[in-house]
């Protein structure tokens, strides 16, 4: 069963100058399309990973899924309910308590003036739930001690804080946790601990993750399905093994070639060519065509639809025609 269903999701930001400047300087409105026509499903108890360069719209999708941002077009359904249009308060409350989020910066995501115990139990306390012994139980689950509940966030290291964030996310017993680059602010050694903790908790609590990251190695370790984003568009979606051995989209191949690998030490890493284009004025047709090694005329004119290919889906006119450069 699909816990999350994202269909034709788009988000446009107005990045124009203030109204008065625009009138005086006769400037047009400037609209930034952060997410464009993205659809995917997340089955229950699986991990769906979104990867992409910065500016590819990963975090925007995450915020729309949890309801922090309203979509400009399309919708997100969680357990069949669209939070943006639902009007029944009890349904909204029920769905909200099923969603939690873990943020990127563990130094900004905990209120510095609150005690850790209050931070962790807030999702429950705000709904009038029973918080007796909850903080201690959750802290022990994430590998901290019950006494830490009376401390303040500044008394912890980055990794410990991210554990506190995980504990807070678990407090309301959610089904879905959206993780927005949860390890990118941590040391590599601490990253592994936090990732393992998250895997264990997933099995223990039957969680579903939407895992947002720019780090392919992290994603490969965690995900059941990987979605590759480029300029707000979903270019390829595949299980990790298929994606890492036979990427169908030239952009996926470029990313995998650029990722350092331990099993091929000494191999020359192929740096990606070009830059991500200006999202205010995206290329016509396939957004990737200016950087694509196998682009043809059709790529400049027609935007390829996301269609089933091999083990997943891919949006490319020449799907499967690219080889990994560093393939052993």
């Amino acid at each position, binding site marked *: 069963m699909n816990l999350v269903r994202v269909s034709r999701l788009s988000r446009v930001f107005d990045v124009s100058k203030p109204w008065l400047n625009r009138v005086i300087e006769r400037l047009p409105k400037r609209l930034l399309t952060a997410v464009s026509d993205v659809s995917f499903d997340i089955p229950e108890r699986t991990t769906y990973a979104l990867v992409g360069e910065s500016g590819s719209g990963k975090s925007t999708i995450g915020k729309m899924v949890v309801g922090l941002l309203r979509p400009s077009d399309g919708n997100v359904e969680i357990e069949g309910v669209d939070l943006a249009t639902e009007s029944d308060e009890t349904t909204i409350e029920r769905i909200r308590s099923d969603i939690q*989020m873990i943020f990127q910066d563990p130094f900004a*995501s*905990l209120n510095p003036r609150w005690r850790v115990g209050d931070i962790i139990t807030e999702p429950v306390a*705000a709904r009038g739930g029973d918080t007796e012994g909850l903080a201690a139980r959750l802290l022990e689950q994430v590998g901290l001690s019950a006494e830490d509940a009376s401390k303040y966030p500044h008394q912890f290291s980055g990794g410990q804080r991210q554990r506190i964030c995980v504990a807070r996310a678990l407090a309301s017993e959610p089904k879905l946790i959206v993780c927005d680059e949860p390890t990118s602010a941590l040391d590599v050694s601490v990253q592994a601990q936090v990732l393992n903790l998250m895997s264990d908790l997933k099995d223990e609590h039957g969680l579903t993750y939407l895992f947002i990251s720019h780090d392919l190695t992290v994603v490969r370790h965690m995900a059941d399905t990987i979605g590759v984003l480029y300029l707000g568009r979903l270019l390829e979606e595949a299980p990790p093994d298929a994606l890492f051995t036979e990427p169908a989209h030239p952009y996926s191949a470029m990313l995998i070639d650029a990722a350092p690998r331990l099993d091929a030490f000494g191999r020359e890493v192929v740096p990606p060519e070009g830059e991500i284009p200006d999202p205010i004025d995206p290329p016509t047709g396939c957004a990737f065509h200016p950087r694509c090694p196998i682009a043809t005329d059709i790529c400049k004119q027609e935007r390829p639809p996301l269609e089933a290919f091999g083990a997943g889906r891919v949006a490319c006119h020449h799907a499967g025609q690219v080889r990994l450069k560093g393939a052993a």
Partner: protein
Amino acid sequence: MSDLPDTGPAPETAPPSRWKTAWDSDIAYSFRQSPVAVIAAIVTLILILSAVFAPWIATTNPFDPASLNLMNGFSPPGVPNQFTGETFLLGTDDQGRDVFSTILYGMRISLFVGFMAVLFAMVLGVGLGLLAGYVGGWTETIIMRVADIQLTLPSILVALLIFGIARGVIPIEYRDQVAIWVLILAIGLSDWVQFARVVRGATLVEKNKEYVQAARLIGRSSWAIMFKHILPNVLSPVLVIATISLALAIIAEATLSFLGVGAPPTQPSLGTLIRIGQDFLFSGEWWILFFPAVTLLALALSVNLLGDWLRDALNPRLR
């Protein structure tokens, strides 16, 4: 380390007491390192305590007509009166009131007006600043434009205006009773803008932090987010402004009273005393003006220096 002699029993592992934690904190250390702050704090403390305990310290109650003797009028400081032989430490005024006692009682009024005005300005400014910063849009535009407009008017003028309106509205028999409260309202209303601007700026920074998003995510109301999450994080600059505003409010009160629109002669503040004293300055009775003025100076200066130190101590960029 092994060749060092045994230094005795192992250090205590009991958790440090509250007092010890406070003494060891950065702010306490910075306080101890700053002689200006220590002296300013001591002077402020002495002045505030002597104002609070004025009835026990003052030699006479200057507001009790029964305790006054007109024969004691114009006694110079420290010299026995030529008619009654009584000696007054700081002299007496034209009605024979002991200047030392009137200063203590006057300081009470000055400090009360100062504290209440700052409290009023703080509540108003912090509330409006939080609202403007968090809600944004038209709410923010209206609040901040009103603040900008008010900043273009001198605050003493705003206070005079409010005072003038209040005088017109309030019946004459209540004027003396409510004069103090009108003064508080006038000074408070001319002072809220600073709080609002600083709190708005800090709120804009805080509201985009992820802990606020986490609170929005679980469906907390805007009120809960503003007052429980953001407010505690914007309070340290507020504390600094409140301290400096206290000095300014005391001076503003003295100015208004000096101009004759502040505290009434039945409840004289330091400013009223200075106004009364200046009538006698050129006839040689300098002490009636001099001692209240010096007290006002010491009070405003020490509170101000304390505020300056607090600003530096709480500003992480200066560390």
